[in-house]
């Protein structure tokens, strides 16, 4: 969203609009009443403020780290039970980390982690959620009242190519088809960026074909695409039988300490009950550390929630993701800004979106 310079434009219009509104009063009653209403608002200058813009003074009732007072605060966390990236959530619940921070968290499962999660958070059906930054940045640009408070981990996106095709490097993908689960998939977004950085136009030189997530491998086997881009646990399991090779992940090369998933919290919760947001963020970060240091335990817990894959496989996956790397504060802002610029490169985010202002709008500092 572009921010226009304030009120000069509005001042010069007042006289004109009043005259016009009065002129309209002669024809239809509804028009008149609405018009008069609008004029009154314009005069008092109290137009509806865009949500998420500007700084509201927030009363700080508790510094970070202090436990919440009173009975355990009930919260709803939206997550995707099939995505192993969100393993911090079940760990936090099962290993008492939420309880330690005086939180009683219920999970709401969303099968396809798309903007549905954001919608759920923005409309209050959930209080927070964990999801992939590269999937969420574009919907967030549209203006949901949701704030990112922490990065959660890196890794889990993989670009696989069939060994039967002769694709051995990113450059070989020129002119080929890549199967993805949908047009807004983080796999498509991330690897478009990778391709762009190697000089390949992700829109013109490569064809992205969409298939339901569990059919991606079948699509490649049928020859409808030569490579696929998706996330763990699927991609890790597909690699196991050796028919596919891994071309890149979102930890390859220059992206080695980039975040993949973020924790986002409802804007009104962040503004109205900041201590709760703080507690939640702390809990999730602690859980992340736990996952990093005890991947086997995390795998077992995740698996008990019905995730795909055997516990040894899940353990290996979790070890390859960087759960100990959970940026906050300036580091987080910098990464989001970087992603935003890169997404502009591949025409996902609008070119005239100001990255810095965008980051300010979607990030909330609840830890300092």
């Amino acid at each position: 969203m572009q921010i226009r310079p304030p009120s000069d434009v509005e001042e010069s219009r007042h006289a004109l609009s009043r005259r016009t509104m009065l002129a309209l009063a002669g024809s239809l009653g509804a028009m008149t009443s609405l018009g008069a209403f609008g004029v009154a608002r314009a005069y008092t200058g109290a137009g509806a403020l865009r949500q998420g813009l500007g700084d509201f003074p927030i009363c700080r009732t508790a510094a970070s780290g202090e436990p919440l007072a009173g009975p355990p605060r009930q919260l709803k966390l939206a997550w995707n039970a099939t995505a192993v990236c969100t393993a911090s959530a079940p760990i936090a619940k099962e290993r008492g980390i939420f309880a330690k921070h005086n939180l009683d968290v219920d999970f709401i499962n969303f099968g396809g982690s798309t903007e549905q999660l954001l919608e759920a958070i923005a409309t209050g059906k959930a209080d927070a959620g964990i999801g992939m930054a590269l999937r969420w940045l574009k919907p967030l640009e549209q203006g949901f009242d949701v704030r990112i408070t922490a990065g959660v981990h890196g890794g889990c996106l993989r670009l696989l190519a069939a060994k039967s095709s002769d694709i051995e490097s990113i450059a070989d993908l020129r002119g080929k088809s890549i199967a993805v689960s949908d047009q807004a998939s983080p796999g498509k977004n991330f690897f478009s960026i990778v391709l762009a950085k190697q000089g390949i136009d992700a829109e013109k030189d490569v064809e992205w074909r969409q298939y339901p997530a569990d059919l991606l491998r079948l699509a490649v086997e049928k020859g409808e695409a030569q490579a696929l881009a998706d996330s763990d646990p699927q991609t890790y399991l597909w690699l196991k039988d050796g028919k596919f090779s891994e071309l890149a992940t979102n930890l390859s090369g220059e992206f080695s300490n980039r975040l993949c998933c973020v924790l986002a919290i409802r804007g009104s919760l962040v503004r109205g009950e900041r201590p709760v947001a703080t507690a939640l963020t702390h809990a999730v970060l602690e859980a992340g550390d736990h996952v990093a240091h005890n991947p086997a335990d995390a795998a077992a817990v995740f698996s008990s929630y019905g995730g795909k894959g055997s516990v040894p496989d899940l353990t290996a996956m979790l070890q390859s993701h960087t759960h100990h790397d959970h940026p906050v504060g300036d580091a987080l802002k910098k990464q989001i800004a970087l992603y935003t610029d890169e997404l502009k490169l591949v025409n996902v985010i609008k070119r005239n979106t100001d990255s810095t202002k965008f980051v300010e709008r979607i990030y909330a500092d609840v830890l300092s």
Partner: protein
Amino acid sequence: MSSSSLDRVSAPPIAVLGPPQTINYRVWIGGSAAMSAWLGAALLTAFWPDVPDSDWEYTRQLAVIFAAVAVGPAFALLAGQRIAPLRRIWRAIPWLIALAVLLTVWEAVTAKLALLPMPFFPPPQGVLEVFIDDWPRLLDGVFASLKLLARGYLVGAAIGFVVGVAIGWSRAIGYWIHPILRFVGPLPATAWLPLAFFVLPSSLIASTFLIALATGFPVAVLTWSGVAGVSSAYYDVARTLGANRWFLIVKVAIPAALPYVFVGLFMGLGNSFAVLVVAEMLGVKSGLGWYLQWAQSWAAYANMYAALFVMALICSSLITLLFRLRDRLLSWQKGLVRW
């Protein structure tokens, strides 16, 4: 009312409905109301400032469009009594007024007052922006979807028709196929996706199959119903006149069942649209359902509404086309049934 206009009315080149006085009153009141409604919409859009910090690019253009629509009733008002086709505009006047009011309310509540939150409720200029900026992709999508629909619908309708006739005519065939139809037909398309993709050679064939299935089921059921319900008197007449079985099926049963078949075709059309979005999840490069999904996953609801609008337009046009076809083939029904 000037006497000159009365003179014009009293010697019209075409027949006037009702006494001349009434027409003039209705015309003037209706036309003025419509005109002022649209002008009101235009003025409100142009001169009431958008909410601060929004960046709707086409607010001015929207106002111009509203003003242009107001010209329609104005023109009809002045010239309509002479030119017969413009009289059609008179019939649309109530809807024109309602539309203007709705659009004004929508505009006021979204762009001017922001009572309804973004991104769920884009204002009219948001949707206009989509049409202006993204029309190549939308147009591409229209053609791609139409191609897919045509393939699926025609195949489904043809097979459904043949199956329906077979079941309606032969008890033996009905015995075997009827239960399959009952169980398989109503299953949702999404359930078929993985199976279809696995079994069929390509995603294009799988998508076509999904649409064909959605179309074929109602066509088969209704054709069957039509054929089975043909009055036995028709058969008696033909048999005594020396008709063989082929003649009975093709020249008696099928024409008699055609009204039912058309009902099936209409239902199939609606069904195929409903399935279009699912069918375009499989390896499709462009299309309205594909566009819809993309817009939704980007939370670009203006784009989604634009695509939905285009889809509705196309579905409505196809239904009209089907009605025209029915009119021609079933013109003999005009005297019998109210349609």
